[in-house]
């Protein structure tokens, strides 16, 4: 029996073994009213029976937590009874942990610390080779005839204990299997002379947990996980806690930032970065866009951006200059017949960028590309990207021009060999020829496109010719052709 000096909870009782919930039908007392011990406090209804609930304590009803008509699980707190004159307890923060987890969710694309799981915006490595098992356990041994046979647990154990390669042991079991007797005899006869083969290094870490998201401004870091089995550096060990000096504030890097840091460094260390800048006269594109934009919105519900035009023109240019869409593997050049176009999307609050990929963009027309861009941008901002969405890119376009930059030197996203930076669209005075061939000044919408490329594969001339074609595509954009 609760004494008159303590606070008592009123809980939903279990009226029968199989009953799991109850509904409050009526509160017989309201907040602030006095109540005696065992006095009926409320009425409830369950699957089995309707009944009154007597108060477990005496004093004053401080708080009613569940209202009439609500159904709650057995054991749920329904009300609080306190000594007369006491203050009501502070309302419980609704599941603060759950809320905090929710708040953490926007980081979700990269929030998890270095774990083995691929993050949505990463491109996980090809599955790492399985950890090397104790010699011969998982690997099929071969007998003299070259067939694969089974190695039993005890044989595997003995083999590993003595550093024996089961393949060396003659087998007398079924199908030539090495039996326990066989390996024991082998070991005892002293033939197990070879030292244990050095177990290969533990498998490279499964997809490194970097979430290399290109930031908004100039160095646009690429955003893939390496495809090579070369073990990437695991996210750096957290530095020993350093205390802040006066005027300093110290915050540890989160996983996304760590990932970006690692990837940027590695990319610069891998590729021979060169950047070339071309000025593009976008007047034709501007005019076409003005015309098509309302049509696209009305008929297709798609927002037609300059980016769509650029992307479309780029893909056309890639067809003739495939090495900007290629990959270097060791000393081999891997060209691809498809273009998986990565489009950088800024995350809110300057928290980073994510680069979802439009797969097989070579098969899309302007509308298709526009729609694709809208779709991945939306999904990126609403955290609906899947790991597949951020893998497999072959060429990336990044678009910091919205902030006003006119030149950039983006960092290539490994293992791609080029990345195109789209700068601001600025009205400039330019020299053009009038109808009679005279030079005059005109005002044109001008945009710089900056291509960073890997000089290991792509030479300056190649890159320039690619960009020249890209410019021509844009300056003579024919909506009919696209």
């Amino acid at each position, binding site marked *: 029996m609760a004494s008159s000096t303590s606070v008592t909870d009123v809980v939903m009782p279990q009226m029968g073994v199989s009953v799991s919930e109850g509904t409050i039908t009526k509160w017989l007392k309201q907040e602030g009213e006095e109540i005696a011990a065992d006095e009926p406090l409320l009425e409830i209804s369950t699957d089995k029976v309707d009944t009154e*609930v007597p108060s477990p304590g005496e004093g004053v009803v401080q708080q009613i937590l569940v209202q009439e008509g609500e159904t709650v699980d057995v054991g749920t707190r329904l009300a609080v009874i306190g000594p007369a004159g006491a203050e009501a307890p502070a309302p419980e923060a609704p599941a603060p942990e759950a809320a905090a987890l929710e708040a953490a969710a926007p980081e979700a694309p990269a929030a998890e610390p270095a774990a083995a799981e691929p993050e949505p915006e990463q491109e996980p490595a090809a599955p790492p080779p399985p950890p090397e098992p104790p010699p011969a356990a998982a690997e099929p041994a071969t007998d003299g005839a070259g067939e694969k046979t089974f190695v039993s647990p005890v044989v595997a154990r003995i083999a590993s204990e003595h550093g024996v390669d089961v393949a060396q042991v003659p087998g007398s079991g079924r199908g030539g299997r090495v039996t326990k007797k066989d390996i024991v005899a082998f070991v005892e006869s002293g033939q197990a002379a070879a030292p244990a083969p050095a177990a290969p290094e533990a498998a490279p870490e499964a997809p490194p947990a970097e979430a290399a998201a290109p930031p908004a401004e100039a160095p646009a870091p690429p955003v893939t996980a390496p495809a090579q089995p070369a073990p990437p550096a695991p996210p750096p060990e957290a530095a020993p806690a350093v205390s802040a000096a006066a005027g300093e504030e110290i915050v540890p890097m989160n996983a996304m930032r760590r990932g970006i840091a690692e990837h940027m460094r590695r990319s610069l260390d891998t590729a021979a970065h060169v950047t070339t800048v071309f000025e593009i006269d976008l007047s034709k594109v501007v005019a076409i866009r003005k015309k098509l934009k309302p049509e696209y919105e009305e008929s297709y519900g798609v927002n037609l951006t300059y980016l769509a035009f650029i992307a479309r023109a780029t893909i056309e240019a890639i067809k003739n200059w495939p090495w900007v869409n290629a990959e270097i593997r060791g000393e081999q050049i891997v060209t691809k017949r498809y273009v998986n176009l990565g489009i950088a999307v800024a995350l809110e609050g300057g928290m980073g960028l994510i680069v979802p990929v439009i797969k097989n963009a070579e098969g899309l027309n302007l509308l298709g590309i526009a729609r694709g861009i809208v779709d991945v941008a939306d999904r990126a901002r609403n955290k609906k990207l899947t790991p597949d969405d951020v893998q497999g890119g072959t060429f990336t376009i990044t678009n910091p021009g919205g902030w006003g930059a006119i030149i950039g030197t983006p960092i290539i996203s490994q293992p791609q060999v080029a990345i195109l930076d789209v700068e601001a669209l600025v009205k400039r005075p330019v020299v053009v020829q009038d109808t009679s061939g005279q030079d005059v000044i005109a005002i044109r919408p001008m945009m710089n496109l900056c291509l960073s490329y890997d000089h290991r594969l792509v030479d300056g001339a190649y890159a320039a010719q690619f960009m020249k074609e890209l410019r021509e595509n844009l300056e003579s954009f024919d909506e009919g052709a696209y």
Partner: protein
Amino acid sequence: MTPSKFLVPGVQMAIAREAEPVGSLQEVKEAGLDREDLFGVYRHMLITRGIEERGHILYKQGKIPGSFYTGRGNEAAAVGVATAMSDQDVGTPLHRDMGVHVTRGVEPWRIFAQYMGRADGPTQGRDGNVHMADSRLGLLAMVSHLPAMLPVAVGCALAFRIREERRVAVGWFGEGASARGDCHEAMNFAGVRKLPVVFICDNNQWAYSTPTYLEYATEHVADRAEAYGFEGVVVDGTDVLAVYRESRRAIDKARSGGGPTLIECLTLRMEGHAVHDDAFYVPKDMFERWASNDPIERFRSWLREHAELGDAEEDEITSGVKKILNDALTRAEESPLPDPSSLTDGVFATPEDLDTPHHK
């Protein structure tokens, strides 16, 4: 509510004997109880009801897990029989027979602890509600499969017979459980061997929602006794003195080698099968009729009329009971829950466990 209503005229032989009500204090003295004893009986009935009423509240407050059963309305039948047992006798009471545990001396706080699954309950939290017993007090813990304890009670009587001890076993069962084979096998064996066992049928008219006429086809359950070779008696279960007197007769008979008796106590289950059952299937007027025959109220009236129970004594008894219960509840509420690490202890007995009063 007198049993004579059930008498079928002309068929005297096949009918269980109907017990006569007890009248004066003198009759009671002849039956073996004096005034102090009677107040003790009254107190036991009050404690029984108090425990169950309080348990009912606790259950609704969420302090008692699982389900909760009471024997409201059965207090006279339970206390009456238990009072007629001697210390050396043993019994297998059921869930309507809390009065037996109370009369035999189980402490109320341990009963509350049992309800609340505490470590100091008689089963240390391993079983719930009335599935408890203190074997040192000669009681065996019931199981849910009813009436599985009847053959066990007969087994106790068998031991007494083998050892030629003047002890009696009492086995309880309900009118619903009488439908199962265990009941037949137990009674048959007891009758064949004339074992010192008394069978008590708590006939409270309802087995969950099943009425008597869907459980057995005879007029009384006690009619079956004849088939097993011993006497059957029907008694008004709300009359504690009548129950006592019949029990005394039967127990004495068994003790002196006269074999078993089947006593059927007629009562009403005044609440649902368990607290979660509101007994909508029981006609309201049935509740009303039996409520006017409440066993505690009946006995109180009888005591005031025949045993000169005055206000002062009555208050003393009532407030004494209240204090016992309040103290018991506090003590039980403060007692600890069982430690999960003890879960797998005691599945098997050790030789030390055989050091009981029975194994001497």
